């Protein structure tokens, strides 16, 4: 008996032990903060071997680029550290690395929404603006790399939602151009029978934050304004949210879309069940692969529609930052410049079809031939809005998902949901 009660908790401690370990590590780190990160911009020093920490290198091209760098810089070798494919797990490992003040990770490949948190905790080093020609980057991508007007990262890869639409069905219905507004979209759907009208990603996860923000921004509202203050309880935001809520009620958006993440939405479109789909650019190549897709050559992309004109997509993507606790920061800075140079970004687009952050590449004829959606993507990107820049982004996105989901499933009215969200964001976001 006694033996049992003593061993039983031991099994139950697995999860706790891991959590506790993180805390232990955190505790080890606290106390002498600021010493490592005190380097002001422009004083990055030290040369030698460094590492690049990022999620799984699914295309294999990051390793290629690292190899290219290594062959040119034998004394400043870069080692690629692959973290899990899941974004939350990547963030967790980077946070733990920062809390132990470990120098294991030098260059961090950060999701655009993590910049504020990492910067505010002094986990990453400010970058010298002079080192990068920021005018060459698409302006919205640079926004995601700054915190309080200080540059903390270099935009590397970007992403924005596009409207995928069935060219064959629109043509059959005598519609010549994709819709620019939500009303046009509804009218078009009225003319095409036999398929569902519109879908996006509405399951309760990060994708819902993107889709909700897009709807609000596309109706002229904001979730968080330019000064960083939450301002979501407005008539414009309500019109945006209502587009989705009414969409579900009227059947414009099929019921099952409330379970959609990217992949189920893609499958529904590829089965031919959807006329319009809000989706990231990655689907282009997959839906054009004969075999699994029934819509090969029967679709195209357009900028997302909005309330009174083109909509404002949500910005995705990744930025490169330097860990505040790393050695050889000068090498790291050079390496980041190398990765964000035109040649490297061009090669990366060709190899992995991940959208570049440099504006010039979108006009490249050869690239345009291979990726016909580039002009549409560029137009979308220039119009794109970042998700709220918040230090406590995890809590912010949870609050957005909570209230948006409640509104979409009819648990709350749009008014209640937005009022509740405004209240929560006010507590979470400090001016």
């Amino acid at each position, binding site marked *: 008996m006694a033996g*049992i*009660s003593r061993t039983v908790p031991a099994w139950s401690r697995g999860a706790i032990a891991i959590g506790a370990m993180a805390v232990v590590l955190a505790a080890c780190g606290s106390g002498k903060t600021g010493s490592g990160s005190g380097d002001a911009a422009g004083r990055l020093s030290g040369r030698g071997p460094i590492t690049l920490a990022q999620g799984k290198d699914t295309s294999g091209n990051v390793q290629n680029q690292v190899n290219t760098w290594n062959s040119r810089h034998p004394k400043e070798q870069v080692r690629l550290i692959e973290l899990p494919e899941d974004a939350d797990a990547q963030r967790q490992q980077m946070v733990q690395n920062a809390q132990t003040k470990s120098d294991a990770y030098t260059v961090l490949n950060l999701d655009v929404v993590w910049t504020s948190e990492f910067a505010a905790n002094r986990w990453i080093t400010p970058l010298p603006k002079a080192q990068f020609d920021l005018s060459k980057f698409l302006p919205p991508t640079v926004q995601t790399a700054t915190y309080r007007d200080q540059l903390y990262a270099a935009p590397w890869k970007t992403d924005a939602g596009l409207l995928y639409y069935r060219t064959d069905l629109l043509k059959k219905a005598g519609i010549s151009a994709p819709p620019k507004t939500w009303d046009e979209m509804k009218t078009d759907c009225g003319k095409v029978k036999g398929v569902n009208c519109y879908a996006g990603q509405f399951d309760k996860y990060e994708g819902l934050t993107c889709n909700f923000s897009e709807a609000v921004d596309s109706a002229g509202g904001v979730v968080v304004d330019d000064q960083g203050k939450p301002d979501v309880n407005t008539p414009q935001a309500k019109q945006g949210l209502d587009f989705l809520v009414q969409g579900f009620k009227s059947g414009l958006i099929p019921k099952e879309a409330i379970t959609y993440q990217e992949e189920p939405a893609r499958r529904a479109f590829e089965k031919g069940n959807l006329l319009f789909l809000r989706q990231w650019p990655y689907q282009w190549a997959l839906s054009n692969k004969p075999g699994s897709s029934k819509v090969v050559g029967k679709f195209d992309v357009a900028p997302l529609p909005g309330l009174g004109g083109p909509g404002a997509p949500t910005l995705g993507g990744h930025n490169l930052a330097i860990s505040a606790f790393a050695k050889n920061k000068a090498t790291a800075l050079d390496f980041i410049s190398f990765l964000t140079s035109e040649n490297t970004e061009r090669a990366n687009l060709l190899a992995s079809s991940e959208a570049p952050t440099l504006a010039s590449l979108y006009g490249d004829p050869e690239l345009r031939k291979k990726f016909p959606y580039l002009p549409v993507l560029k137009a979308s990107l220039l119009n794109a809005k970042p998700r709220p820049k918040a230090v406590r982004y995890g809590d912010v996105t949870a609050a957005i998902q909570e209230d948006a989901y409640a509104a979409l499933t009819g648990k709350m009215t749009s008014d209640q949901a937005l009022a509740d969200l405004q209240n929560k964001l006010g507590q979470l976001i400090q001016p």
Partner: protein
Amino acid sequence: MTTTTAEPETGSVRRGSGRDVQGSGRLAGLLLSPTLLVLALVVGYPIIKALHDSLYQRSQGLDAQGFVVQGDRFVGLKNYLDIFSGDSSSMFWNAFWNTTFFTVTTVVIETVLGVTMALVMHQAFRGRGLVRASILVPWAIPTVVSGLLWRWIFQADGVANALIGTQVLWTTEGFHAKVAVIIADTWKTAPFVGLLVLAGLQTIPRDVYEAARVDGAGAQQQFWRITLPMVKPVLLIAVLFRLLDVLRMFDLPYVLIGERKQSVETLTMLALDEANNLRYGPAAAYATILFVYVALVAYAFVKLLGTDVIGQMRQQGKATSKRKKNTAPVRQEVTA
């Protein structure tokens, strides 16, 4: 806590070697000390550290330059008070009831199914080895993978909906999400109960059944009067394992249904969510509460149902070894 029947038997042995006890105890302690040290490090330290951390809070405020003010603050029992009565108390109680609900439902279903499976597997029939092996497959699949598998089955146009002929959106909030988790969990862990019970069934000597048959006992009587009592110690251990396991349920609802869905949110998911948002104090507090809850359930279970699970196993082991000399103790065991 030894049982009363074992007391007189070991009593004489103990008296005989009484002089030796002190010295050998010290030697035993010495020999065990590396193990104890390792246990203290890997079990004791995290527990104490988690308790300690649950009394602290990490600052989340920003200074004028927008940097997070560093440092942990001692807050006493505030983390616990917040959980039980603060803004998040509804989240806690919801997760608490979910955890309890899953524990009760899945353990009951899995026990019934597991015993049935064991009885089937215990029968001699052609291909028995194959059935036993195949029944283990769900148990061998990592929970995350089976979570993804079931997510695929339960998606809007998935197999589950095709079978029942209506469209249930399983992964949305609602009671159906709970049902989905229970089905997936049962699929995965009923075989575990089944296998443990099967092992117990195989230790029941055949002659007991023969004797029962001679005495004119029917199949039902044999099950209730022989099989169940004799397999009880093993069954109790299987149920205890499942209880402790399901109280910590995390990966299945997390992968199958998703994060922060109140219908299936369990205590471990709350703890992870807090830790992910760098609130290690509240996370440690959630973990400690779960730890206490698990310990209480285990204690209550052992007290109410099993007298002493380990002791009983030992006793049964002794009884079966004695059977060679005399069948009387077995009879006692059966009627007990």
